[in-house]
């Protein structure tokens, strides 16, 4: 057994086993249309049998010029392009953008709007994490959690549809507030009911079905270990960084909106099943973040004040003074930042987006090497990338 393993790891390619026969690495295209690459990610692998010797991500298949488009449309219109970055958690992306605009705009966002923003952003984060669990389980061969997670996500979509009108792309935030107030009194009650149901029943179900399943643990423990130093070096953020045991969360460490008012924890990877920073840790951070998001939502609903929901109205054009602003917020994938340079008009001069998935993906060049191809699939799943955000 041990003998076989050493043979596999050293590889055949660079050895001269049989004199006169030359062997070389095989180039393998993984993607862009591959079920395990979560979108149109293309990986250029150099493999020796099952072992990956080089792994290069090739991006750009979903490039839509969002940053360039931003220079040609006004600030309000661009909000709905941010929806399309991370289509699994669009509200979080809205949040990053409007925060940057408001920094320049010098506007007081009504308290009620901030609460609604937090509630919808956290609901969106939960939806995104549910997809992350579901597809990760699917990559590992577990079909049932996918169906259950999608069922709960559907409930979130219904709630968001009732308040924002869209099922997937909400266009809910405007600079200076949110677009609509709650539809009726029942909405908040339904949010609380859903959150309680998720916390008490569903998360437990997922844990029993997937997280603490022995086969799942064996498959993921000690696979794709990202050390703390690597995570820092490659600029990882979000659950990838926290999975490596670093407690960093923009909501806590660089607070924006009304997050400082709420009491929540930042779950980090603890290496319960293997090494700190392995795939299981990153997975588990997401499960625990769902619970924390539920806590935030409950507090936000309970303390929601009355009043207006937008400071400048929906129809008034937004004009920013000349200047630059950078805002960073915690989206479901990590630190999402917008850098806006304004020249005083209705459109930005430049809008740079720092997208978390893009930075999180880069580490694959280092960690992917030396793994088996099948472990690479697990590794990509645990990074939870979304290609809309990488390519923009």
């Amino acid at each position, binding site marked *: 057994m041990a003998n076989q393993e050493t043979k596999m790891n050293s590889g055949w390619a660079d050895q001269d086993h049989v004199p006169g026969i030359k062997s070389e690495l095989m180039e393998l295209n993984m993607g862009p249309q591959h079920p395990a690459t979560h979108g149109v990610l293309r990986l250029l692998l150099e493999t020796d049998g099952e072992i990956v010797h080089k792994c290069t991500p090739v991006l750009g298949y979903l490039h839509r010029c969002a940053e360039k488009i931003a220079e040609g449309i006004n600030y309000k*219109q661009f909000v709905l392009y941010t929806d399309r970055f991370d289509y699994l958690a669009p509200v979080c992306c809205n949040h990053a953008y409007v925060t940057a605009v408001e920094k320049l705009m010098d506007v007081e966002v009504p308290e009620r709007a901030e609460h609604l923003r937090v509630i919808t952003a956290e609901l969106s984060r939960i939806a995104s994490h549910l997809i992350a669990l579901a597809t990760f389980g699917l990559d590992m061969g577990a079909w049932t959690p996918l169906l259950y997670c999608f069922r709960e996500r559907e409930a979130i979509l219904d709630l968001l549809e009732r308040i*924002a*009108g*869209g099922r997937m792309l909400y*266009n809910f935030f405007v600079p200076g507030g949110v677009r609509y107030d709650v539809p009726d009194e029942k909405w908040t009650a339904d949010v609380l009911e859903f959150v309680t149901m998720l916390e008490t029943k569903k998360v437990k179900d997922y844990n029993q079905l997937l997280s603490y*399943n*022995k*086969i799942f643990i064996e498959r993921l423990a000690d696979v794709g270990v990202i050390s703390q130093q690597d995570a820092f070096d490659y600029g990882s953020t979000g659950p990838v960084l926290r999975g490596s045991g670093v407690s960093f969360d923009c909501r806590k460490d660089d607070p924006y909106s009304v997050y400082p008012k709420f009491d929540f924890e930042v779950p980090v990877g603890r290496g319960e099943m293997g090494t700190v920073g392995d795939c299981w840790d990153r997975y588990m951070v997401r499960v625990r973040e769902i619970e924390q998001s539920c806590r935030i939502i409950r507090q936000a609903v309970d303390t929601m004040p009355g009043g207006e929901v937008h400071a400048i109205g929906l129809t008034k054009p937004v004009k920013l003074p000349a200047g630059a602003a950078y805002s960073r917020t915690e989206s479901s994938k990590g630190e999402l930042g917008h850098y806006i340079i304004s020249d005083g008009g209705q459109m930005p001069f430049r809008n740079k987006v720092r997208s978390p998935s893009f930075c999180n993906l880069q580490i694959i060049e280092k960690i992917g090497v030396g793994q088996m191809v099948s472990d690479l699939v697990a590794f990509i799943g645990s990074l939870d990338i979304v290609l809309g955000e990488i390519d923009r």
Partner: protein
Amino acid sequence: MARYFVDIWQAVSSAMVGMSITIKHIWKKPVTLQYPEERQVLSPRFRGFVHNDMNKCDACQICARTCPVDCIYIETEGKGKDRWLTRYAIDYNKCIWCSMCTEGCPANSITMSHDYDHSVYFRESLVYEYVDPTVKKIPCHKEKRIELGYHVMVKPEKKKPVEKPAAEKPAPESTEADDKGETK
């Protein structure tokens, strides 16, 4: 050796725990809908296809300017009192159902409907024409609109109490103009 059997036991037992959850679901009500027969209940704010009540629209172009993807085409001819709307079309190849056009409309003419499942055979047929200029044109000037019985927005701004508010009462007679509605 003991480790080996413990592992097997844990694998089997944890799989059983998961199985029991799955089995419980057999008796639950299905959450899926059999789509064409069963329809989802849509929320009042649902954003479906855009509906334009052509009786109210006076070609002010605000919606076309607000639209982030420039998919509303408005064409007019003539000037002043003799200005007519000849084309109002929405290109659903481009529309992203963002509802921004409905927010600025001063006449509340354009709204989001609850239709969501139109399907056509050609891409060209997704450009919905709301006016057929060969049948009729729609007047844009206020006086002409009153004359022809189209809906005119009563100005909501009442900053100073204006004396004699009953100078004109154009709005209510929209009954006989209804049949001139849109040609979708």
